[in-house]
């Protein structure tokens, strides 16, 4: 699916530009976005090195293990395929906590590391059930304080910039629950297909 979506985005854009005379902008965008990616990856690189270094210390000191022991009952239900005391569990929890406090630049390295551990567990280059569950919880982003949005609201003179905190958390939670339910449903369908095939 990602192959088709990816190719279609570029194809539709270029075909549209042919008809509407926006080829100039497209030409520019191709090289601008390629250059922007390098800037983005360099800034990602710095947080990746820092946080994965820090988390390696935490792992060796047994802190991640402690964290996963503490929350195992909840996380076990979400990720039944991860064995007890597996490092993936610790990184998943570290990622969730960082997201909760809106620490995007700490959450990403821990999330990537969690994916790394999940891949080791699975041993293939295909997305596993646990990976999909982990990703959808990440994309619905449960954050206590959506700082960027509050900043924009302040900038445009809101009388109460933080009044959307409640509605944002509520929407996040509802979405996460719904997404987990859909994931579970698709997962059970996959299992049936697997058995029949």
């Amino acid at each position, binding site marked *: 699916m990602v192959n088709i979506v990816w190719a279609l985005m570029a194809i539709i854009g270029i075909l549209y530009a042919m008809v509407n005379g926006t080829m100039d902008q497209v030409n520019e965008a191709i090289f601008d976005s390629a250059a922007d990616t390098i800037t983005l990856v360099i800034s990602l*690189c710095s947080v990746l090195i820092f946080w994965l270094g820090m988390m390696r210390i935490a792992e060796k000191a047994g802190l991640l293990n402690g964290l996963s022991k503490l929350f195992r009952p909840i996380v076990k239900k979400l990720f039944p395929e991860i064995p007890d005391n597996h490092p993936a569990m610790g990184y998943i929890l570290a990622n969730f906590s960082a997201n909760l406090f809106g620490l995007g630049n700490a959450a990403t390295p821990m999330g990537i590391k969690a994916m790394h551990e999940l891949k080791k567990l699975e041993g293939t280059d295909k997305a596993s059930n646990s990976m999909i569950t982990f990703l959808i919880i990440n994309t619905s982003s449960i954050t206590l304080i959506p700082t*960027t949005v509050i900043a924009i609201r302040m900038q445009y003179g809101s009388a109460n910039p933080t009044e959307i905190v409640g509605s944002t958390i509520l929407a996040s939670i509802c979405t996460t629950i719904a997404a987990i339910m859909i994931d579970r449903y698709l997962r059970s369908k996959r299992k049936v297909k697997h058995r029949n095939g």
Partner: protein
Amino acid sequence: MVEVITTISIWIIPVTICFILIIALIKKVPAYEAFVEGGKEGLKMSVSLLPFLLGMMVAIGILRSSGAMDAFIGLLDPVLDKIGFPSEVAPLALIRSISGTAALGVTAEIIQTYGPDSFIGRLASTMQGSTDTTLYILTVYFGAVGVKKMGEALKVGLIADFIGIIMSVIIVTWLFL
């Protein structure tokens, strides 16, 4: 309440670092060596991430700059009006899963046009805050560890985004109208 959480957000990183290092010293973990070891892994991941992210960013760049995305939103407008979806936030709803920077720009624009304390302004704020850029997260997380077959991840992610948009409309209508 908000101030407390904001303060926590500022303190939590330095305090976490301090805590990790103290425990490491107590448990006699070679802290610096472990840091370098983990950091090397981070560097490797960034390098493997690069082609995945670059490919995705270029495709999105083409789609946006050609004007095809805006045209699509224009096409959708009358349909959304019919089903009662506030079409003012349609551009945000469509772009939120694809491009984080674009979504942020659209949110700022909507808030500027309609005012932060209007229904549309609150709705755009909630939408922006309660969802994340699914395509980016998928690309980064799968790209860094070299998973090429995403399976149903993209589908589930996009369905979740769709639910998120609907939920935002329902909740903001219920809370603020």
